[in-house]
């Protein structure tokens, strides 16, 4: 599973992307736990950051599979 970090999440994580090795699909909560275990500085952004899977926003009940590309989408500010 590839994790992409953008904007504030990239700055706080210190990387733009990384690979997470998962053998099974996981829930959003479990995925966040795995991400925060690596990057505890991201904790304050969790409540305002959406997870995208393969370029689409996900719902709270989404399941994330080992081959997915996940992106952390903090509040956007385009335009």
């Amino acid at each position, binding site marked *: 599973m590839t994790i*992409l970090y*953008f*904007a*504030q999440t*990239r*700055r706080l994580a210190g990387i733009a992307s990384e690979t997470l090795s998962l053998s099974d699909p996981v829930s959003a909560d479990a995925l966040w736990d795995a991400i925060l275990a690596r990057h505890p500085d991201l904790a304050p952004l969790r409540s305002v950051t959406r997870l*995208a899977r393969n*370029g*689409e*926003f996900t719902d709270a009940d989404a399941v994330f599979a080992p081959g997915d590309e996940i*992106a952390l*989408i*903090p509040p*956007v*500010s*385009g*335009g």
Partner: protein
Amino acid sequence: MHLQIHIGSEPIAAAQPAPAPGEGVGALAEFTGLVRGEENGALIGGLIYEAYQPMAERVIARIIDELCAARPVLGVRVIHRIGRVPVGEAAIYVGVAAKHRAEAFALLAGFMDRLKQDVPIWKTDTF
């Protein structure tokens, strides 16, 4: 409906071609968002924009589809610049061609609102 979306680091040209051709276009509504010389009270030289590009393009296309389902238009062009954008230059251009002005204005304003909520593009820094 003609739809053109471009996200890239090159400057946005001041004059854009019409977002849709033909004799049916009665209204062209355009918005250009420019970088101002001040951000949160501090003087700046410019802003740096970052995008999750494939997703941003997909979300932009979906927003326009949704808005057009309510009130059809003839053509839309969206250009967002990323990377360093100096003060006075355009960060975004949106052009809407429609039969009448009401639907062109509605799409333009509605799109900008949605862009600022849902399109993965960020101002990440000043310079």
